[in-house]
C-alpha cells in the first residue's frame, strides 16, 4: 500500500539555498501563511484579539508570487 511521504520540516528540508528550491519554499510559505487572512493584506484578523500585532504582509505575497513564477520558468 502507498505510504505518505513526510515533507516540510518533518523531512528535514533545509531551505538555506532557496535559489535552488523555489517551489519547495513557496509551497512551505503558502502552508504557513493562512491565505484566507493574508489576502486582505494583514495577518491576524482571523486569530486576532486587539493585542495581536497587525502586520501588512502584502510584500510577502509579492515574494511568494515571484518565487512561484521563477519555479514555473525553470519548468519544474
Amino acid at each position, binding site marked *: *500500500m*502507498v*505510504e*505518505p*511521504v*513526510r*515533507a*516540510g*520540516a*518533518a523531512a528535514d*528540508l*533545509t*531551505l*538555506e539555498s*532557496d535559489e535552488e528550491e*523555489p*517551489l519547495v*519554499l*513557496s*509551497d*512551505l*510559505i*503558502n*502552508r*504557513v*501563511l*493562512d491565505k*484566507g*487572512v*493574508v489576502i486582505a493584506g494583514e*495577518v*491576524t484578523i*482571523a*486569530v*486576532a*484579539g*486587539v*493585542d*495581536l*500585532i*497587525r*502586520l*501588512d*504582509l502584502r*510584500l*510577502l505575497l*509579492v*515574494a511568494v*508570487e515571484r*518565487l*512561484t*513564477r521563477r*519555479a*514555473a*520558468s525553470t*519548468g*519544474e
Partner: protein
Amino acid sequence: MISPSLLYAYAVAAQPEGAAPLLRLLRGVAGIDGVPVTLVSDEPNGDAMGMTVLVSAVDSAAYLPDQVEARVGELAWLAPRAEAHDRVVTAAADAVPVVPFPILSLFRDEAAVRAMLAERRSELRRVLAHLRGAREYTIRLYRDDAKLSAALAELSEPVRELERSVAGASPGQRYLLQRKLDEERRAELRRVSREVAQATFGALEPIARQAVREPLPAAIAGAEPRESSSTQPAILNASFLVDDVRLDDFRARLSELITAREHAGFRVEFTGPWPAYHFARETRDG
C-alpha cells in the same frame, strides 16, 4: 533581557494534555531565530478548558510592524522563519492536536496571549475537538504528458475518429485535419485531466473527515491556461483530514487509484502527516 521582547506564537494546544508532552518535546526544537520554544498557559475558572500556546520571545527591535513589513519580501529573511515556524508546529502536531497560527503572529506579552485565549476559547476548543484523532495529508496529482498523449486515443472517442480521418485523408485535406486533431488532443488532454482529478478527489473525500481542493500550485500549473514548458503539470492539489483509524482505508483506496491510473500517465504525490494547516479555521460553517 535588555531589549523588550515580543512573543512569536506558533500554535495552540489544549491543557493539560498538551503542556507536559510539549515541554518535553520542545526542549530539542529550535524556534524562530534559534530561540527556545516556551509555553504560555492559562487556567480558566470553573470547567472551561485550559489552553496552552507555544511561543518564542523575540527581540522587539527586529519584529516591530514596520521592521517586519520592510523585510518580509526578502526571501533570505523569510525562508528560515517559515522553516522554523513549520518545524515547531510540526513537532507539536506530531504529539498532540494543535491549531497553528499563521506565520508571523506576534503578541505584545503574555497578558495579550491570555487575552486572546480568553476571547477565542470556545472556537479553539471546537477546532481542537475537530482535529483530535486525525491528521492532515496532501495529495497532488501530476499528468505525464508524454504517457497520457500516447494513451489518449484509447481514452477519447473524438481523438480516435480524427486519427482515422487523418489516416484516410488526401494530402490536401490532411494539413487541416492534422491541425484539428492537434487541437482536439490538447482539449481532450485537459478534459481527461479534469475528470481524473475530480474522480480521484471524489473517491477519497468520503473516507476523510474533511477534504479541501485548493488552487493548483501556480508554479506547476503552468499548463493552464497556456500550455507551459512543464510536461508534468499538476492537475489536483487537495488536502484531507483523515481519521487515524481510517488511514489504512484511505491508503488502500489511493493505492487502487494509483494502480488504475498508472498506465494512462498520472503520477501521485502523497505527503503527510502535516500539521492541520488547512483544517484549523473551518469552524464557522460546521
